[in-house]
């Protein structure tokens, strides 16, 4: 499997929400770069803005200000204002998404859930990808089961297979282990790590679990909407 992996660059990225009359600064003037093929973990306490940031990076949400570039191409900012249709195209060509709640379609079997993205968009050479991914993730024996008939860990593997089936350039995982026990969480992160190493897939994973986050190449911490880089032991470089 080969993917053409992309780099991402955020410059002064800011997101302000309105909650009634109150304004909430969720992402505050954040700048960083993620190189192609990197596995980056974003950690931080609840409400720090991690999910908002990953939604901005995945073009699921629009920033209030700032610039987001994908392989040097402006998605937001630089006087760029893409339509919802154009954003959908970027999303399906570039990103794979994994969520804490898996969001599998309950009426479709495991195999059908994995094949779902191909119904709407199919990159060349992905014909046999579904079964290959299920085999790779060790759940091919469950392919004819409904989501309700498999475990949480298996569901997340299905969600990973679904995210990977169209060979995305960047995989965004928002608390992918949030609903799993320690053993299953470690297995999922191990799967992501292997995907990153075997195909050089760029992975951005949000987690509140520092132990799991350390499996990444880089660690970013968000606190109160601001971001800073930590070393893999969890310390800011300036603290050393």
């Amino acid at each position, binding site marked *: 499997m080969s993917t053409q992996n992309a780099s991402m660059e955020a410059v002064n990225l800011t997101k302000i929400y309105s909650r009634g009359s109150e304004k909430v600064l969720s992402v505050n003037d954040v700048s960083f770069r993620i190189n192609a093929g990197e596995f980056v973990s974003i950690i931080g306490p609840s409400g720090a803005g991690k999910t908002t940031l990953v939604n901005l990076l995945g073009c*699921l949400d629009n920033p209030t200000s700032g610039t987001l570039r994908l392989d040097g191409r402006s998605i937001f900012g630089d006087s760029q204002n893409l339509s919802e249709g154009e954003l*959908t*195209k970027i*999303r*399906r060509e570039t990103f794979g998404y994994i969520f804490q709640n898996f*969001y599998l379609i*309950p*009426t*479709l079997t495991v195999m059908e859930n994995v094949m*779902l993205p191909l119904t709407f968009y199919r990159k060349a050479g992905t014909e046999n990808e579904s079964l290959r991914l299920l085999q790779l993730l060790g759940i091919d024996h469950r392919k004819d089961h409904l989501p309700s008939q498999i475990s949480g860990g298996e569901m997340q593997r299905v969600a990973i297979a679904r995210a990977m089936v169209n060979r995305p350039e960047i995989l965004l995982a928002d608390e992918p282990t949030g609903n799993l026990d320690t053993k299953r969480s470690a297995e999922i992160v191990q799967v992501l790590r292997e995907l990153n190493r075997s195909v050089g897939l760029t992975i951005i994973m949000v987690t509140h679990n520092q132990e799991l986050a350390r499996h990444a190449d880089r660690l970013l911490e968000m606190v109160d909407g601001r971001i800073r880089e930590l070393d893999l032991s969890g310390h800011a470089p300036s603290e050393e």
Partner: protein
Amino acid sequence: MITKFQIAYKNLLRKKIRSLLTLISIALSSWVLISLLGFNQGYEASLNKDIDNMGFQLMIMAKGCPYEAATLMLKGGTGLRYMDESIMKDIVREPEVDRITPIMMSAVFDPNKGESGGISAYFGVEPKSFAQMKPFLKFKQGDWFTDENGYETVMGFEAAELEQREVGDVILMPEKNVQFKVVGILERTGTQDDGTIFVPLQTLQKIFHRTNEITTIGIKLKKGVSSVRLEEQLYKLPDVQIVSLEQVKDTIMKLISTAKIMVLSIAVIAILIAMVGVINTILTSVWERFQEIGILKTVGAMPWDIFELIWIETLILCTTGGILGILLAFILAGLTDMAMRFLLPYAPGGGLVLIDLKLVVITLAGIIAIGLLSGIYPAWKAGRIRPLEAIRGEVGK
């Protein structure tokens, strides 16, 4: 690969009862629609057939006399007027006339008919001239009367079936206590002749003490001849009325038009109810799957894909419901026919509900078009769902 059709189909199976109820409402609308459209064309076709099968284009009768069996029944067998047979000599001389036949209608109350008795109509006819007028009449058993003064009868198919008579049996004319021997039973014609009991004209005249009197003269015109001049000429005869069967048809069609408007209104209401049902089902389904639709968008579905997906669900519901309704219409055609006959003041013989391929196609296309129209709003709403809002469950909740 999984197709959009499979996704839509599997989703409909998720809420089986709700989908089934919607399907039933569509099926019922489709049934009502095709049955009523079938009635519209069937009634007219049967009426035309009835009138064509009368074998004559003009009828002459004494002023105020009912001119066919159904009206006679409707009036409880009363109101008959008579004219002298001699009038026939004048009529047959007219150049437009091909042939004529005298008829005497009479009705008696039969206490054994139905639950509380009913009217039985007897037609006194001359077999020779009457049969020439109606060459399509075929005998299931036996033949016409052997004696023009005899106590013999030829029974229409339904009349014989109702009375359970065979050739050789005897029937009793109530009130008059006269017995007739069954000499012939006609094959089914799909006209009012099926329910009629024919007896020799002279015998009937004798029984009712109406020697040389008749109620009706049927006139068959020469081919391609206009009846206008003849009608003018016949009106000059004293105390008669002339009924052109074309005119009869127009009158009945006018009479029936109110009923037609009413039944079509019912069809429209049924369709509107089904439409609201479809919108409600699909819209509810969209709101319930708000998050799922958001996820579909994150895995690559464009707004049009979602629109299409929801539309396919509507299409599946409407096509299946439409086909079921059409099948139901075929199965229950007999029942619909009976109900129509019960409701209408006059119904011709033959099938009242005529459903052909053209009507099936029109109904199915109509139901699908209405369904797709109903699906536009839910599909449009679904297509506009933004993935992030859906994942957060902001709008769906």
